């Protein structure tokens, strides 16, 4: 079966530890990051991740809720896009 993916984008004021916070949530749900781009522009942290959710698609909603909560605490906006299969 083809793998299923989501693209997650987080954006907000930069400070150290943001990547560790966000990626540890994803790792806790057993999902794998296959592509990643991160940059800081004028103090704004921008992160995009391609995450393989195939091992357990049912975790997507739980992960989304957890990430939204975590990102809110970190002062980041987060968006999910279902990226289909590859």
């Amino acid at each position, binding site marked *: 079966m083809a793998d299923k993916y989501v693209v997650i984008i987080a954006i907000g004021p930069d400070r*150290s*530890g943001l*990547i*560790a*916070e966000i*990626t*540890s949530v*994803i*790792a806790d749900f057993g999902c794998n*990051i*296959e*592509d*990643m*781009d*991160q*940059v*800081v522009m004028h103090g704004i942290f921008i*992160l995009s991740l391609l995450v393989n959710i195939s091992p357990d698609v049912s975790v997507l909603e739980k992960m989304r809720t957890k990430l939204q909560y975590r990102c809110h605490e970190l002062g980041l906006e987060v968006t999910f896009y279902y990226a289909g299969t590859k």
Partner: protein
Amino acid sequence: MVAMVSGVLSRFHVNILKTRASTIFNDLFIMIMVVDTVHSTIRNEDLINILKRSCDTVGLALAVERGESYRCGKKVIVFDLDGTLIDQEIIEELAKAAGVESEVKKITSMAMEGKIDFLQALKERVRLLKGLPEERMEDVKGRITILPCVKDLMRRLKGLGFKIGIVTGGFDFVANYVGEEIGADYVFSNHLVVKDGVLTGEFTGEMVGAEAKLNAIKKIAKDVNVGLESCVAVGDGANDLFMIERVGLGVGFKPKMVVKERAPALINTEDLNVLLALIGCIDLKKDVVSRI
């Protein structure tokens, strides 16, 4: 992996300025991070050691380079021979043929761990080979296996314009053969003296001691008209450490403990293609260099 590496950096207040990561060559995940250690709560050497240990436990290769060095394009790459490009230790294969394997093996492993002087070890081992018929060297050459990924890697490196060298304290009858097989531009090795069809137990050549390998790199660099910062050195043993610590990027490939502790880059898998990622020969590098 991302969580693990960024977790270590975050713990010591190391700020990540830019990240590019991707899955390439089928299943190889590569991540390049540009980090700022100005507010770091730990010395750089200690941070590198913690990263190395963390990466080692999960089987990741790691390279840490200063911004200036990373930006500078690499032009020269040199490899140790025994245990790096080929599976065997040539002198041990010769020892097998001469029936003195265990004595020679003992000296080799002590030398590779840095417990005895390399020159002394080489002299003692070659002396044990005295009387071995010359034709047995051909048998040994026939048994040499070049690691499966090496030829492919060399083709890619050549395509990228690298000058490739082999620097070994081993012997020319194998080093030249491997050099030809992989298309090396330079081979630096020693020569076993043969008289009346048998080995005399002596050798000639200048490739003794750790400094000899670095001197060989310097010669290649001068030829190519680049500095040591544009050179990459790859090896596994204690006698490779001197060059590994002094070139732009020194890589321990399947390293012995002493190299593992001190090399700024480590590859713990059999796959030398990982090297392409570590030296930045993938598109990801272009993307981050402008941010350093």
